[in-house]
């Protein structure tokens, strides 16, 4: 690096550090007892030193000081990637699935709980991925369908005693109907307007759940929802048992998640999926090619809603309790963040995104206070360095080659 470039870099660093202090001091230094400088200056100095060291290291790396380490490392990673590429995809899938199947035997209760959350969010993320990633419709009220699914099962279970397995398709169907009802008036809009309107509808669903006392019991929620039941070989005869324990529920949601992955994969590779993409890319052109754009968008919306509804029914059966509080806007934002973070339109990306956003905060429970702070920072970094997500979708090229 040349001297002027280096000077520019350090100048930028100085400005950034000054700016950081201006931001940091009011946050930490203004207290009811009066103004304080010591703590904020100390934190600021630590941050400044660490970033200065990192910057210096980066500069040295640019000059090639660390080449003796990085060159062999790079070569090794290349060899590894090549070897990994030679293994067919299905072997990886089998490994992942086998890992998921034995997971409950290797871990304890807390991990099961987190894993169930992750899998629920994978279902939600994949469902939203159909709407946002494939059809390009920004939906900020997706969690409404999760709520519809959850309440469908909750009400049918409590009032009519219907079984989980019967209610699962019903929950999906109700969510799809809700999707059509919400989608029909809104999907004529494009871009920002659509986002605002879906945000509004998402809130409407939550507020209805909150206020329709006679049906939903309002903010008190619904108690006494049954867990899924199955007939299972027990003590030498077939008996009906409730899948109440966490491991059993884990397998239920794992099955649901696998079905979702397969379904979304199939949609992605179908002509309908391509029509979703055509509508996303250029609506007018798609219309001129004979695509019924409103119908296709409604279909995408309803399909996304179905997966939300299925996940919702599971959520109700796992919690044995539903209340409107679980379906707030922040949940919608969370699911959307998973899709964007993982890579829009990419199935492994969404799975990775769900893992990152649900499992990592659990692992770093110690830093709970700073969770949102880190979250924002990570999001900003991602947008700078990997704007297409952790595992971007590249299905087009890949699939065409597979055809040969």
């Amino acid at each position, binding site marked *: 690096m040349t001297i002027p470039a280096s000077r520019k870099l350090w100048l930028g660093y100085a400005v950034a550090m000054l700016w950081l202090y201006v931001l940091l001091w009011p946050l930490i230094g203004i207290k009811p007892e009066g103004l304080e400088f010591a703590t904020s200056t100390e934190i600021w100095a630590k941050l400044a030193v660490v970033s200065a060291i990192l910057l210096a290291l980066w500069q040295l790396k640019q000059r090639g000081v660390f080449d003796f380490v990085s060159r062999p490392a790079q070569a090794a990673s290349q060899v590894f990637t090549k070897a990994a590429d030679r293994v067919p995809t299905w072997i990886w899938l089998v490994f992942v699935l086998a890992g998921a199947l034995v997971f409950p035997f290797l871990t304890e209760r807390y991990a099961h709980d987190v894993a169930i959350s992750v899998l629920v969010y994978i279902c939600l993320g994949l469902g939203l991925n159909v709407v946002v990633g494939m059809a390009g419709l920004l939906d900020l009220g997706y969690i409404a369908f999760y709520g519809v699914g959850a309440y469908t099962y909750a009400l049918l279970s409590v009032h009519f005693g219907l079984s989980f397995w019967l209610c699962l398709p019903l929950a999906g169907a109700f969510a799809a109907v809700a999707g059509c009802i919400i989608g029909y008036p809104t999907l004529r809009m494009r871009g920002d307007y659509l986002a605002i309107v879906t945000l509004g509808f998402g809130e409407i669903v939550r507020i209805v759940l909150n206020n329709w006392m006679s049906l939903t019991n309002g903010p008190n929620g619904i108690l006494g929802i049954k867990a899924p039941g199955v007939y299972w070989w027990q003590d030498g005869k077939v008996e009906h048992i409730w899948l109440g324990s966490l491991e059993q529920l884990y397998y239920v949601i794992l099955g649901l998640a696998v079905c979702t992955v397969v379904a979304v994969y199939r949609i992605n590779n179908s*002509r309908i999926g*391509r*029509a979703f*993409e*055509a509508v996303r*890319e*250029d609506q*007018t*052109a*798609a*219309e*001129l*090619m*004979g*695509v*019924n*754009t409103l119908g296709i968008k409604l279909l995408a919306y309803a399909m996304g809603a179905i997966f939300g509804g299925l996940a919702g029914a599971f959520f109700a059966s796992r919690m044995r309790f539903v209340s409107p509080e679980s379906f707030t806007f922040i949940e919608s934002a969370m699911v959307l963040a998973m899709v964007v973070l993982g890579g829009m339109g990419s199935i492994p990306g969404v799975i990775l995104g769900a893992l990152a956003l649900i499992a990592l905060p659990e692992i770093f429970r110690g830093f709970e206070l700073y969770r949102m702070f880190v979250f924002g920072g990570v999001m900003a970094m991602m947008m700078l360095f990997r704007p297409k997500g952790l595992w971007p979708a590249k299905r*087009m*090229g890949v699939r*065409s*080659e597979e055809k040969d």
Partner: protein
Amino acid sequence: MTQQPILELKNVSAAYGRIKAIKDISLKVYPGEVVSIIGANGAGKSTTLMSISCVLPITGGEILYDGVRIDGTAPDLLPARGLCQVPEGRRIFPRLTVEENLDMGAFFRKDKAGILHDMNRVFQLFPILQERRRQHGGTLSGGEQQMLAMGRALMSRPRLLLLDEPSLGLAPLIVQQIFRIIREINESDGVTVVLVEQNANLALQASNRGYVLETGNVIMEDDAQALLANPDIRKAYLGE
């Protein structure tokens, strides 16, 4: 001609909000013809095509296709009836591959063998698309994108093809190639073509008849050769 026109516009008007873009346009296109609509910027050429494709609702008049009124129908039903448009600026799907773009053109069709046959025909017309069939549409050059847009429209087996500014922003050599193919589609595949162009000279040379549009009105219609020879037209549109 005593034949029934494949496309007829009777006093068609259309507007964007309160701004009238075309006023009382009447025109006829007969089967097997190449008809060009020429005119300056903002004369209403693209508006006319968008009205014919029913993307833009008309405010007055009638549009007849095969003797049946089509104004007011859903635009997505028209390709299945043999009316397809190649929109201005090509508007291919940039993140779909060439092959997938072509397949989108046959979206309403279910006959796999026929689709494959037509795709081969498109590759025969535009060999470069076959070479690039695995590439994303967005990575093609402007000329290739125009070819792809035309190929995509041909995949719907149109009887009437509407072409909006196929020469826009292309190198002269490519433009000539495109026009050669327009003639070929017309002559060997029997597709009737309506051509909207700013490049009046080229368009009229490739056409049987032409309409001249000015500020939303048809001010002249004649055989293409006659228009080419017309001194007013030569002065206004052919730069002489």
